[in-house]
């Protein structure tokens, strides 16, 4: 099909074809397909790899339509007068006699406001991305001389411009889900959106996995009502289940599902991914991959620009430091993660865009978004966690579609070798493991209901119907909806005492409206679903004590002020005592004191930080990769594809204990020093294992096995105890089937949730999102530390007095998948039921070494074994291997 053919079938305006030709481009098949769908009035999901011209594809229909409007015969200013008579009407047919495009004098705002209104909304998860896209749109618009006005609206947009945008909207507005919610929560929303023809949702695969996706879906539902003619275009990376994602883009009818059309861009060259074939000894545990440092450095040296992904901030810090220590060539290597000061991040991004950097060590803060030009290699340090996640990262290398992206995976320990191996296989098969579409959270719905009440008053019945058009809320029960309304109005307490303090009230027609302007103001300040970990500002000050051992902390006598280094998670700081050293902002610092929400640190001269962070990252190993790892273990022939060290390790395990079959779970028990250990291998990720550990220790406690502590990693869980588990199991005083029975998810789980700090954190975020607790107050600013504390108290009281309260229900729903990963645990318990194999051993097994080495690195409870803390890794390894 040549251009002429295409043109005949799909009249892309002349100017566009010329523009493509001028750049030596051909419109790609998926770009044309998307244009066709737009003409047919279809909502469409475009699935395309990075570098496929996805964003341009998303905007082409809009640019086409808007230029057609303007390329119709110009009759001076009358053009606008003509359009003014039919505001918001459908597109004007392309004139046969389109003149050569000329740059019109921009119409006055007044003309714009009367004549056109908003045509297209573009929503992206990152405001930086919105700004970047605006810049990228400027080129075609200027080069084709299209009289199209594009503006961004983010948290940084000045108030004056926001006001102008409401009155005189641009043709294309680029914004974020939160700003979108704010625009909808006003009484001029019908005016602003009635002319809307299209919404473009970028990075949809990323948005829909979180509560931001819920918020966005509710905004879409609102738009479908305000602008029934509006169609959606979703832009997404490849996902496991495109059909369900496509549902997100169209209103869901009552009692069945509907989905947008799907266009898939083909033709991307398959990425070339390999595992680093290290000549060093592979570590047993840890996530730093220090052993491969020289090899990683060498890769950076041999490539033009390399992105080095790691899973956590602290790993990024550590690796950055280590690289600079051996950077004899003085390569420009930079650091980028979400906790760094914004100004510092911008500097790195600019240097990157300008091609001045050879390497950037970064976290998932760069998983999305901004096009950084010529990255020719991606290195992924540590566990890939999931195949889709890995593919998206790899896609950051080389934004040219027809050239293969290159990536090197660097496993940080032996288990990660297995994970990397199966991840590479998955990438080669293009097997996706993105999570299924969420069902909409009730706390987000509460925020939306309040937002609606801030706009035009609503009838509950109508809003219920509207909300159910949003795919995540399609199955929302009326009772839940009513509870949410009740919650927003008076808190939803069985003890109805807050009628007179209601935030929304019904008028005499039964329509809900916001009770007073203060509520509206508070909504505006608190909109959004991103509840960050409570973060504290880190400031560099001069040390109070020259010496290495700081006295125990007190909050006095520290010079206030100092340079801001960035922000750090509160829970990390809570684990420190003054004088502890850790890595932050690329240097080793000493914790001095915590004053309100500021952490004071001083520069330390230590060689290595006292407090490392071994967190493997926020995301657990995906269920999909976990299954592949189990299958790999089960398939001895496939071991040939593994490095020698790993193959030997597994063979030793096979001869000393047992290598688990794909569907069985092995439980090993062995004595060590004066304690007994129980190690099991569920392969379900650290979060689910931690929950399992909490529940198992409760049970073992009740069975009088006297557990002392446990430690979990992504693959295994080890519990140590005073009781002799091997003997108890042999004598049938301890029944493993009963121990791992799924009924632990009943009372034991409830009892644990009562005191779980993770559950309290989960509740806190629901309380904030739902609007129970404000993050930001008008006038008086309450620090986040106070908010954290008071939600814990609220959790305790509410749990005792109204355990079925809608917020507790929301928090429990989050616990199923979030920090506690209960659903996955539940699936696992069902999977292994009747398939547990016990191996009583005299000593630690080779497979158990990695998790045993985590002991002492992670938090443990009780009179944890100081002996173990002191023992070196080599001893354990020797014990396991030299038999």
């Amino acid at each position, binding site marked *: 099909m040549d251009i002429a053919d295409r043109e005949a079938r799909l009249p892309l305006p002349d100017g566009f074809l010329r523009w493509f030709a001028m750049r030596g481009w051909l419109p790609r098949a998926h770009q044309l397909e998307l244009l066709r769908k737009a003409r047919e009035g279809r909502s469409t999901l475009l699935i395309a790899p990075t570098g496929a011209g996805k964003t341009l594809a998303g905007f082409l229909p809009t640019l086409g339509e808007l230029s057609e409007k303007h390329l119709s015969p110009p009759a001076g200013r009358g053009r606008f007068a003509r359009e003014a008579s039919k505001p918001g009407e459908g597109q004007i047919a392309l004139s046969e006699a389109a003149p050569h495009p000329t740059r019109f004098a921009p119409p006055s705002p007044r003309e714009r406001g009367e004549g056109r209104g908003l045509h297209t909304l573009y929503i992206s998860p990152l405001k930086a991305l919105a700004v970047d896209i605006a810049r990228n749109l400027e080129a075609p618009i200027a080069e084709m001389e299209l009289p199209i006005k594009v503006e961004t609206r983010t948290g940084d947009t000045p108030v004056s411009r926001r006001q102008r945008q409401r009155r005189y909207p641009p043709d294309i507005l680029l914004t974020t889900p939160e700003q979108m919610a704010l625009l909808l929560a006003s009484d001029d929303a019908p005016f602003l959106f009635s002319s809307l023809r299209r919404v473009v949702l970028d990075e949809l695969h990323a948005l829909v996995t979180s509560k931001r996706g819920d918020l966005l879906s509710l905004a879409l539902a609102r738009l479908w009502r305000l602008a029934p003619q509006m169609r959606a275009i979703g832009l997404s990376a490849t996902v496991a289940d495109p059909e369900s994602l496509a549902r997100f883009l169209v209103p869901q009818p009552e009692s069945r599902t509907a989905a947008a059309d799907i266009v898939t861009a083909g033709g991307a060259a398959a990425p070339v991914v390999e595992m680093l074939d290290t000549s060093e000894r592979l570590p047993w545990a840890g996530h730093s991959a220090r052993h491969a440092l020289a090899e990683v450095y060498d890769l950076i040296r041999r490539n033009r620009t390399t992105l080095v992904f790691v899973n956590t901030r602290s790993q990024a810090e550590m690796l950055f430091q280590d690289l600079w220590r051996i950077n004899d060539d003085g390569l420009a290597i930079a650091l980028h993660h979400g906790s760094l000061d914004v100004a510092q991040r911008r500097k790195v991004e600019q240097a990157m865009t300008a091609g001045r950097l050879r390497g950037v060590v970064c976290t998932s803060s760069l998983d999305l978004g901004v096009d950084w030009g010529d990255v020719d290699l991606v290195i992924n340090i540590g566990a890939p966690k999931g195949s889709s996640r890995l593919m998206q990262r790899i896609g950051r290398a080389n934004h040219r579609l027809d050239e293969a992206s290159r990536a090197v995976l660097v496993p940080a320990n032996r288990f990660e070798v297995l994970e990397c191996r199966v991840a590479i296989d998955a990438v080669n098969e293009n097997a996706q493991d993105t999570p299924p579409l969420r069902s909409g959270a009730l706390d987000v719905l509460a925020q939306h209901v309040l937002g609606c009440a801030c706009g035009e008053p609503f009838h509950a019945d109508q809003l219920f119907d509207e909300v159910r058009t949003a795919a995540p809320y399609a199955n929302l029960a009326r009772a839940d909806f009513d509870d949410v309304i009740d919650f927003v109005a008076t808190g939803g*307490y069985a003890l109805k005492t807050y009628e007179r303090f209601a935030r929304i009230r019904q008028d005499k027609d039964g329509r809900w409206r916001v009770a007073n302007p203060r509520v509206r103001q508070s909504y505006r300040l608190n909109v959004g679903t991103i509840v960050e970990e409570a973060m504290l500002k880190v400031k560099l000050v001069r040390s109070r004590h020259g010496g290495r051992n700081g006295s125990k902390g*007190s909050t006095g006598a520290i010079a206030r002020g100092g340079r801001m280094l960035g922000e750090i998670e509160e829970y990390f700081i809570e684990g420190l005592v003054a004088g502890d050293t850790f890595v932050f902002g690329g240097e080793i610092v000493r914790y001095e004191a915590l004053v309100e929400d500021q952490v004071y640190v001083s520069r330390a001269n230590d060689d290595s930080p006292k407090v490392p962070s071994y967190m493997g990252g926020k995301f657990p190993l995906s269920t999909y990769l976990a299954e592949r790892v189990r299958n790999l273990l089960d398939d001895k022939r496939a071991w040939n594809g593994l490095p020698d060290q790993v193959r030997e390790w597994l063979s030793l395990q096979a001869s000393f204990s047992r290598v688990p079959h794909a569907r069985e779970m092995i439980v090993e028990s062995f004595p060590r020093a004066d304690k007994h250990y129980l190690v099991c291998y569920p392969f379900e990720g650290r979060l689910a294992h931690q929950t399992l550990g909490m529940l198992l220790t409760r049970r073992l406690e009740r069975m009088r096995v006297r557990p002392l502590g446990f430690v979990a990693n992504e693959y295994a869980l080890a519990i140590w105890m005073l009781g002799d588990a091997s003997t108890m199991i042999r004598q049938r005083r301890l029944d493993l089937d009963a121990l791992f029975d799924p009924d632990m998810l009943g009372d034991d789980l409830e009892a644990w949730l009562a005191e779980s700090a993770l559950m309290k954190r989960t509740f806190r975020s629901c309380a904030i999102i739902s609007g129970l607790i404000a993050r930001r107050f008008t006038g008086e600013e309450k620090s986040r530390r106070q908010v954290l*504390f008071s939600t814990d*108290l*609220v959790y*305790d009281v509410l749990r005792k007095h109204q355990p079925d309260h809608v917020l507790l229900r929301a928090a429990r729903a989050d616990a199923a998948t979030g920090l506690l990963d209960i659903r996955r645990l539940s699936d696992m318990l069902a999977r292994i039921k009747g398939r547990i194999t016990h191996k009583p051993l005299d000593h630690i097994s080779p497979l158990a070494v990695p998790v045993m080495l985590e002991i002492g690195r992670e*938090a443990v*409870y009780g009179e944890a074994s100081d002996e173990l803390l002191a023992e070196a890794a080599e001893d354990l390894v020797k014990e396991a291997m030299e038999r």
Partner: protein
Amino acid sequence: MIYESDEPLSDSDHLLSVLAINDARPGSPLLVAAVAFVADLSGALFWEQERLLVVSDLHLEKGSSFATRGVLLPPYDTQATLARLATVIAHYDPCIVIALGDSFHDPDAHQRLSAPDREALSALQARRDWIWISGNHDPALPCDLGGVVATEVALGGIVFRHEPTGEVGEIAGHLHPKARVSTRGRSMERRCFASDGERTVMPAFGAYAGGLSIRDRAFARIFSTDFVAHVLGDSRMHAIAASRCC
């Protein structure tokens, strides 16, 4: 409050006990100017000899106080606080109860007491003397609440007042002391009594009362030397040197 428990220690109690000088249950002995008190796990202080029970900073109706400002906290805090108070009163059966100030969260709070809560309060006051010390949150308590209202009370060398001055023999509240301890990367925060043997600052008793770290300089003004945090654990008290807290 679990007084008769043979339950295994909770995680938190394990951790606290690692740092503790001594553990005690149900209450920790606490000396103030040579007078022996018991620091109870509930946050109350008991004077055996006088059969006198002290609780501080109940902050009743704090939930509804927030509600008047549009923050609709669950309205169960008064009920929860009074229920805990009832348990500790039933346990010690005191002749005198002193509420050490900030018993009500705001000057109007007492008017918002629900009828059942008001009855529960009256039941606690029956057959004993009840003294409301006024605090900064409730400077002018009405007299129809039962009991008597005072700004401070002195008894046998001990003086009870809301805001601490550091005087020897003083038992005060106001500051809501809490202690944070961390070992081995884990940390937790609990309410505590702060005491150096000469004077004591009591923990807040109210369900919604937050806390102030004992490392705050406000405590340095009251205690010139190191002092002990009698930390409220899950099933026992833990006496921990303030300097070991963070």
